[in-house]
């Protein structure tokens, strides 16, 4: 098979997984290959199955068919805590931090070995300086943006080789989106990020490689640099507003190159 030829470049391989939630067949054959390092983006409309793809990789909604291979090891069928323990950090959508726990506890609970937090504290506070100030406050006192940063920071406490980040820009003010993007870019220098993102500006600036999930299947994939020029493809799978953003973006980069 193809993936056997270059086992070291892919950190994660997803082979035609099928996932059901109750009676509903949500994923009908999603395949992905995430290269080590950098950001890979999952695009697609609402309800296309992006979040379910992340949850299937992690075993929260285990796939019934297909393979998930992390670093050469088959992980489908394992329980979620075991999969996470192999080095996957998860940032769920809707800023799911623990509201009754303090910021410190929200980070502490993510430790897999004693002292994880102390080891990583400087790195985390470098990325999100606000959290240092809020350290003792309970989670429900934080604003939306701060909660989102905490959710990302929580995934950084343990030594994770792969981060699954679900819609980090959702409901954030533009300034905060900017800050979040900067943080994820910095992160991707040291680990691999698989990002689900509706905000096309953010997705197109961060991702090197993209996959489009449509109706529970992998519909398209390629290099992000090619996608932003393909307005027709964007309109078809991601809608008119993303196409407009993509068009403007492409035009601007064209201008820059020309001028």
């Amino acid at each position, binding site marked *: 098979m193809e993936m056997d030829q270059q086992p070291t470049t892919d950190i994660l391989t997803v082979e035609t997984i099928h996932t059901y939630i109750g009676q509903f067949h949500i994923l009908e054959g999603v395949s992905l290959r995430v290269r080590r390092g950098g950001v890979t983006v999952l695009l697609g409309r609402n309800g296309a199955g992006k979040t379910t793809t992340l949850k299937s990789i*992690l075993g*929260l909604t285990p796939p019934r068919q297909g393979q998930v291979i992390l670093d050469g090891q088959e992980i489908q*069928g*394992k*329980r*979620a*805590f*075991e999969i*996470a*323990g192999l080095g996957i950090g*998860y940032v*769920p959508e809707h800023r*799911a931090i*623990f*509201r*009754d*726990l303090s910021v410190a*506890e929200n980070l*502490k*609970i*993510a430790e*897999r070995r004693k002292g994880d937090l102390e080891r990583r504290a400087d790195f985390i506070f470098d990325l999100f300086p606000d959290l240092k100030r809020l350290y003792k406050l309970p989670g429900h*006192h934080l604003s939306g943006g701060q909660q989102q940063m905490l959710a990302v920071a*929580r995934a950084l406490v*343990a030594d994770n080789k792969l981060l699954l980040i679900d819609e980090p820009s959702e409901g954030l003010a533009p300034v905060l989106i900017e800050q979040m993007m900067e943080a994820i870019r910095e992160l991707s220098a040291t680990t691999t990020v698989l990002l689900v993102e509706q905000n096309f500006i953010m997705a197109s600036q961060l991702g090197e490689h993209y996959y489009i999930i449509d109706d529970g299947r992998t519909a398209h994939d390629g290099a992000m640099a090619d996608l932003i020029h393909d307005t027709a493809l964007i309109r078809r799978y991601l809608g008119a507003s993303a196409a407009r953003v993509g068009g403007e973006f492409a035009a601007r980069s064209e201008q820059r190159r020309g001028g």
Partner: protein
Amino acid sequence: MKLKGFWRQNSTFVVLMVLLILLIPLGWITMGQKPFVRTVLSGLTLGALYLMVAAGLTLIFGLMDVLNFAHGAMFMIGAYAGWQFYTNPTFLFGLAPLVFALMTGLAATPLLRPLVIGWPVPEEWQRRLRTFLILLAIAVGVIGVLGLDLRDLAKTAMVSTMVAANPLAEATPQEPLARFWLRPTLLLIAGLLMALAQARPGDQTQIVHRAEQRRGWIALLALLALTVAAVLVREPAAIVVLKMNANWRFVLALLVGMLIGGGIGAVMETSLVRPLYVRPFYLVIATSGLAFVLKEVVQFLWDPLPYQMERPPLFAQPGKADSILDWFSAQTTTVDILGVTFPSYRLFIIVLGIVMLLGLLGLMRYTRLGMIIRAGVQDREMVEALGINVRRVFTLVFAMGVGLAALGGIGAAPFIPVEPVMGDRFLMQGFITVVLGGMGSVSGAAVGALLLGLARAFGDYLALKFQLTPAISEASTVIIMAIVLLVRPSGLFGKKE
């Protein structure tokens, strides 16, 4: 700003406390000092017992969404276990080797899995084979217990309670070891057969974990050693316990009962509850069914009679101490508190309740387990996604909750009759407490228990004074619950909707 935040978080608590404190002078003046103090102390005693039942209920519901209708039966089992251990532990020590032997067999499950996974069993026969193995295990287990006169063992404590006989003399001669050792052996085989069924022979979809194997060996060897030890000491241990200082024996009875309760809780969670998490309604039926079964088993062993467990000597010297300090040296049955003659043992219950509450709050606040429980009450899936084995946390919390109920049962045993139905009303009040305080909140359960205990005590007082029906005190708790739910549908400190 900080003050505002504090107020928003604690307003319920502050308002309640201010209300209660305002009620103190009112009650003191209208009722007179003595009846008031006596009623408050009775209320606190009841509240402490309600708390011991409600604490487990609220944790189990908060984390797992399980309404444990067997919680009252666990309270009752705790009372019987403590009573047995304190009065004559022959029964417990006679039963222990069999239980340990069965557990040893079951512990072999992860070790058998890699051996049987490749057995050439066709898929349609796998299920039948498992059923057959389980039936065979039950048969072997029954043969192992057959002829062991459980009722005779159970009677030892009964007799010494009823005729106040010397329990040492009542230690009936038991089966000689040469014959007895066959029983644990048979139960070990029964356990192994069950383990074989659990290892699902031929089911190749399973995953074999190496770490599980290592832990399996350790558990198996530890349990085997425990079984052998339990077989050897089953007779001398009972005598050693009986010859021990009775106060220490009581402390030990509290611990042993709590551990037995915890063990039952762990077994219950892994066997009965776990397969039904996805069917919450079945869980209601399964746990209520278990409660009936346990009540019948207890009735079979000890007859449906109420027993009175003897109070430990620390609370049993005749007379009255003038103050709590005085009681420490005199160890009398009653103590004078603000002019009221109050049973010293009930004070102990209040203290036990407070100690338990502080321990539990400390656990929730300062330990990693507590942190995981608090996080899990809100979002189990995310806790699992962080790499934490939530299933194991469930088992632990279930065991802990049931253990606390059992502890409450032993605590109550010396002053309420020990009988099969003793847990029922505590279960009812426990549920009301939990609803009142808010599902999943330990401090909510504490405040709820305090309110309910006081309501019961004052209700009883009023009923007696104005010659009303005593039902008024029972109704008062439900009325309080209704009012609180009208104002706050998720309970006083509820975080779950």
